[in-house]
């Protein structure tokens, strides 16, 4: 009975947190707190069943507690996703850029236009994602950003990364393979395309999760 009450509480809390992969950590921490509280009551002479009842009551409504955790978990996830995008962006970008520069003499106009287009996308996306990472991290208090807006900034940047990776893989890779005179630009483009595909998948997943967080917060 005592265990059931605590287990029921954790199930209700878990339902509110199922959006986050980090929910298990929160549940483990709250379970420890609930069991500590129940054990405390038992040490003071309360029967175990009553002790569990008191512990659950002291922790408050599980749905309300889940609602308090959602923006925190969303911000933590947005921060991780944003940092990953910022870290992988330069590596993938340098690979694409190097292969494009090597292929430039063969088709200067389309390659040049591609570089300018990607540059314009980066100029708008990098500040947005930097803001999202800062606002969901240690600078969050100073920036006074709402969790929804900070998560939204990272989600938008992840969406842009998906679109950019799709465009690069679909348009640039065949072009570079066709116009590449030496194997070097083709090899670099192939490696860049593989990395872009990997990022595309993770960024698409991140976009979906972050949009769900955002929907819960707005």
């Amino acid at each position, binding site marked *: 009975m005592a265990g059931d009450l605590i287990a029921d509480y954790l199930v209700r809390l878990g339902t509110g947190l199922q959006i986050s992969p980090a929910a298990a950590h929160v549940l483990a921490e*709250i379970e420890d707190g609930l069991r*500590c509280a129940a054990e405390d009551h038992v040490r003071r002479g309360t029967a175990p069943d009553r002790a569990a009842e008191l512990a659950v009551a002291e*922790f408050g409504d599980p749905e309300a507690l889940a609602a*308090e955790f959602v923006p925190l978990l969303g911000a933590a996830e947005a921060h991780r996703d944003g940092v990953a995008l910022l870290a992988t962006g330069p590596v993938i970008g340098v690979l694409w850029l190097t292969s494009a520069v090597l292929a430039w003499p063969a088709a200067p106009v389309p390659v040049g236009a591609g570089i300018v287009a990607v540059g314009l996308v980066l100029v708008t996306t990098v500040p947005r994602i930097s803001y999202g990472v800062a606002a969901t*991290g240690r600078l969050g208090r100073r920036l006074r950003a709402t969790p929804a807006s900070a998560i939204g900034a990272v989600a938008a940047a992840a969406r842009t990364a998906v679109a950019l990776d799709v465009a690069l893989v679909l348009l640039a890779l065949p072009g570079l393979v066709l116009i590449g005179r030496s194997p070097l630009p083709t090899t670099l483009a192939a490696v860049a395309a593989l990395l872009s595909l990997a990022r595309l998948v993770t960024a698409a997943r991140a976009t979906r999760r972050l949009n769900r967080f955002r929907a819960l917060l707005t």
Partner: protein
Amino acid sequence: MRAEALKGHLDAMLLAVVSAGPRHGYAIIEELRTGSRGTFDLPKGTVYPALHRLEQAGLLTGTWSTGPGRRRRTYQLTAAGRRRLGTERATWQQFSTAVSAVLEAKPWPAT
């Protein structure tokens, strides 16, 4: 005392409790209650999100360990947390001194 009354002060008090040494969530809650002689007997659930918020802000750091047959998260003050606590203490001293001066002042003689 209700949680709303503590709004704005809870973070500083949590930092103060953890400044004494690493604590897990329930120990922090109990210390907050006993340290305030029962005045701050908050819904225990409300403290955990606050601890996570302080961790995200880089003021606390949390580590997992194995407690009595279960996982346990222990919090510790970071260097930034110690600096923030110093600032919060100074601000509170100034604020409480000013409020006390006004509330406890003898009425001015009528003119």
